[in-house]
């Protein structure tokens, strides 16, 4: 990727972005309950027929919203998330043994993604201490007499995020609460692809308003917008 994308002009087409994705890859996604999932990249992944994916992100979206679609259509073999409560299809597939799910408490998951993104080897967390579901398989480390769980960092082959505005260097801003996990996920991909509502010339964003520095972003794709109805919208 570093060889094919201009380091100072990272704008590519959706097709080019999809060419970096393959069956079996680990793909981390930004977003929370579908909000902040990158719609055009996900639609492209569906149409490309990608399968056997390992997905990492906050949740499984809704059956017809965001990453939920990839789960519903059986493209995902493993999901690392904090909950799948809003996507009953995910629960069904899990129960049937067709989808492996690894749960983390939500804040722990966010910190595991950040730890991967900033290059830490792990973090010590006390959330879920004493809870057998959370403790299962995890090493305990005592610091100053207090016990913590050793939580491991998360990274991915590809990270896909959803921003509001990008410049050609990949500097990103987000739209209100669609920020959610996106700035964390943007740091954690070996290759990070940002889908955004608008792409502007480098220099058009104020250095103060940039949330994700472009150095973490490998490619920028123009969004075609959300192609689903939100759960709260009238049918």
């Amino acid at each position, binding site marked *: 990727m570093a060889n094919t994308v201009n380091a100072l002009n990272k704008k590519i087409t959706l097709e080019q972005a999809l060419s970096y994705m393959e069956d079996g890859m680990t793909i981390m996604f930004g977003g*929370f*309950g*579908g*909000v*902040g999932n990158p719609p055009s990249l996900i639609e492209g992944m569906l149409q490309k027929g990608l399968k056997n994916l390992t997905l990492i992100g*906050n*949740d499984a979206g*809704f059956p017809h919203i965001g990453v939920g679609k990839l789960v519903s259509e059986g493209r995902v073999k493993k999901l690392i*998330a*904090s*909950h*799948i*409560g*809003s996507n009953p299809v995910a*629960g069904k597939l*899990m129960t049937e043994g067709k989808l492996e*799910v690894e*749960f983390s*408490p*939500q*804040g*722990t998951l*966010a*910190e595991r*993604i*950040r730890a991967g993104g900033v290059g830490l080897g792990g973090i010590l967390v006390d*959330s*879920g201490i*004493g*809870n*057998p*579901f*959370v403790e299962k398989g995890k090493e305990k480390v005592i610091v100053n007499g207090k016990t913590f769980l050793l939580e491991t960092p998360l990274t991915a082959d590809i990270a896909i995020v959803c921003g509001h505005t990008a410049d050609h260097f990949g500097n990103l801003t*987000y*739209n*209100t*609460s*669609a*920020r*959610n*996990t*996106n*700035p*964390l996920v943007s740091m954690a991909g070996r290759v990070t692809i940002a889908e955004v509502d608008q792409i502007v010339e480098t220099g058009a964003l104020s250095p103060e308003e940039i949330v994700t520095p472009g150095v973490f972003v490998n490619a920028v794709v123009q969004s075609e917008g*959300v192609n689903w109805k*939100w*759960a*709260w919208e009238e049918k």
Partner: protein
Amino acid sequence: MGLGREIREQIARRAAKEIKAGMVVNLGIGIPTLVADFVPSSVAVMFHAENGVLGTGPSPVKGQENPNLCNAGGFPITAGVGASYFDSATAFAIIRRGKLDMTIMGALQVSKSGDLANWIVPGKRVPGMGGALELAEKAKRVIILMNHTDKYGEPKIVNECSLPLTARGCVDLIITEMAVIEVTSLGLVLKEVFKPFTVEQVMALTEAQLTVESTERS
């Protein structure tokens, strides 16, 4: 879950009384979401959402929703005065550092010692703990809004939770359609009984022992 709009609002209205000016409060999905509507506008509160908002405002006017601006349940919100947006690691930093004065959430079971079970139904539903575990463990005060009994009519306020725990000894107050019950170091205290129920009815549908502090009926 089976509660009519009026009763859900009654529970939310009662919960709103627990919220004081200046508090930082997280509202869970379901009845807790309704609570904000019953806090008087004179009581300035900072509502917190796990996805990365502090200071949510009134619900948006229909048709003017920003689909990107939502609470943790995915429902459209607005930004109130003093609101800020941040990533969800920061949202949980607020939780983990004990900056939440209160969290209001639902439950499947609460035990006499304040143990909370609200994230898993063995053999049926394993939706994942989401942010409930951290909210329950770290918020200064945990208030549970729920039906007094489950869909089979069985008590949800029990001696020991039979369902997997979210967090141990975390609950401070339980508000149901029947009563307000406080979790104290000496056990559960029945603080209020809602009309038309009686103290005896509440006790009959509560597995754990209740100390009756007053017979106040509201």
